[in-house]
């Protein structure tokens, strides 16, 4: 927001781009869970663009992004976050959009030293080079610490009115936000990508390990965001809704997975991802019962429905808590 605002102050026409990779945290967990939450479930990029009075284009890069996640040239960060490749990819997409739509240069909110991988003095030029943006990439928040770019040399942008911020400290940005009257903005330090989340990436690693190769579809990575994931056997795992919003979301996948739900008690919708035979279904039913309101009852009736829609009922004893091995949880 701040980088754009600095350019708007110079009378420059700016339109914003937001790339949807499928791994964006924002919105999804809120949309699935806490339906009755007190905050409106807005898209932060849309909200920010509206505050700035500019157009926002949200661009689907789900398919193109797969190669970034699966084969990052610069490797991963602490988890499965390919931050430097990701930045180069997104700026490259912005460059393509700029060229198609007749814009002159690209602006990002990057600051030298703000992030340990993708925003270092030595990696900022990598982003400019690998994206193909070169000197058409302007970072207004730290421009004074970087070589002049084309828009500065051409006089389209007044370099003197740009900033020289650096480092991880966000106080200057927060002070500037206050000066501009931005009182409500997205959390500044990461957390916007599931690929930085240890629990999520553990599930993604499990998905790849079971498939024997690193590939995914959008539904795969969406389902990794939802529910408890337990793998009691190598050949199947259970996805267990944690609350009504998640159960509703998972119910959209009922035709693609064998699923279970307690019939005699309130309980979660449970999807089986993998191949589950007779004993496996009993175990899945006992786990379904365990996570239902009948967890302390002697018997719980569980309905099992396969992908064809055929249902049957199993009367099972809920699996005792001490028989749920911690390593089943993904």
């Amino acid at each position, binding site marked *: 927001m701040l980088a754009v605002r600095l350019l708007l102050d110079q009378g420059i026409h700016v339109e914003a781009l937001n790339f*949807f990779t499928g791994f964006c945290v924002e919105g*999804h967990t809120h949309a699935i869970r806490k339906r009755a939450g007190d905050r409106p*479930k807005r*898209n932060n990029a849309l909200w920010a663009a*509206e505050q700035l009075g500019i157009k*926002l284009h*949200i661009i689907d890069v789900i398919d193109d992004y797969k190669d970034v996640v699966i084969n990052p040239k610069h490797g991963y960060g602490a988890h499965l976050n390919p931050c430097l490749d990701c930045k180069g990819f997104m700026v490259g997409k912005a460059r393509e959009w700029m060229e198609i739509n007749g814009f002159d240069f690209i602006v990002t909110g990057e600051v030298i030293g703000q992030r340990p991988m993708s925003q270092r003095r030595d990696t900022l030029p990598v982003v400019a080079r690998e994206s193909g943006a070169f000197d058409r990439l302007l970072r207004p928040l730290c421009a004074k610490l970087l070589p002049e770019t084309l828009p500065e040399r051409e006089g389209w942008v007044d370099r003197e009115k740009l900033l020289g911020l650096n480092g991880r400290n966000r106080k200057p940005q927060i002070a500037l936000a206050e000066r501009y009257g931005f009182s409500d903005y997205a959390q500044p330090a990461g957390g916007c990508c599931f690929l930085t989340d240890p629990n999520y990436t553990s599930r993604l690693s499990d998905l790849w390990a079971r498939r024997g190769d690193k590939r995914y579809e959008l539904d795969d990575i*969406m389902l990794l965001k939802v529910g408890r994931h337990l793998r009691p056997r190598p050949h199947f795992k259970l996805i267990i809704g944690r609350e009504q919003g998640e159960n509703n979301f998972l119910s959209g996948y009922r035709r693609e997975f064998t699923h279970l739900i307690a019939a005699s008690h309130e309980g979660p919708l449970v999807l089986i991802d993998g191949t589950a035979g007779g004993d496996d279904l009993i175990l899945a039913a006992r786990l379904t019962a365990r996570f239902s309101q009948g967890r302390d009852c002697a018997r719980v009736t569980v309905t099992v429905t396969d992908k064809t829609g055929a249902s049957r009922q199993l009367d099972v004893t809920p699996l005792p808590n001490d028989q749920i091995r911690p390593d089943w949880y993904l």
Partner: protein
Amino acid sequence: MSHSELDARRLLCPLPVIRAEQRIAGLAPGDTLDILCTDPGARYDIPAWCRMHGHEIVATAQDENGELRVTVRVGAAS
């Protein structure tokens, strides 16, 4: 003037907005589009996107299952 429908049910935001932008790019000013959504965030996101791109929200209706139908009239300044 044409009228069409976009099924964005089960899609989580921002996908309904992305699909709407893709569809509207092929429509003419004055055409109308019904967007069907189940993500509660679409109630805010689609109108916000329409406001900034010069499209008009003609109607918004929600059924008893929470399914949202947003009717958009395509503006001239897309």
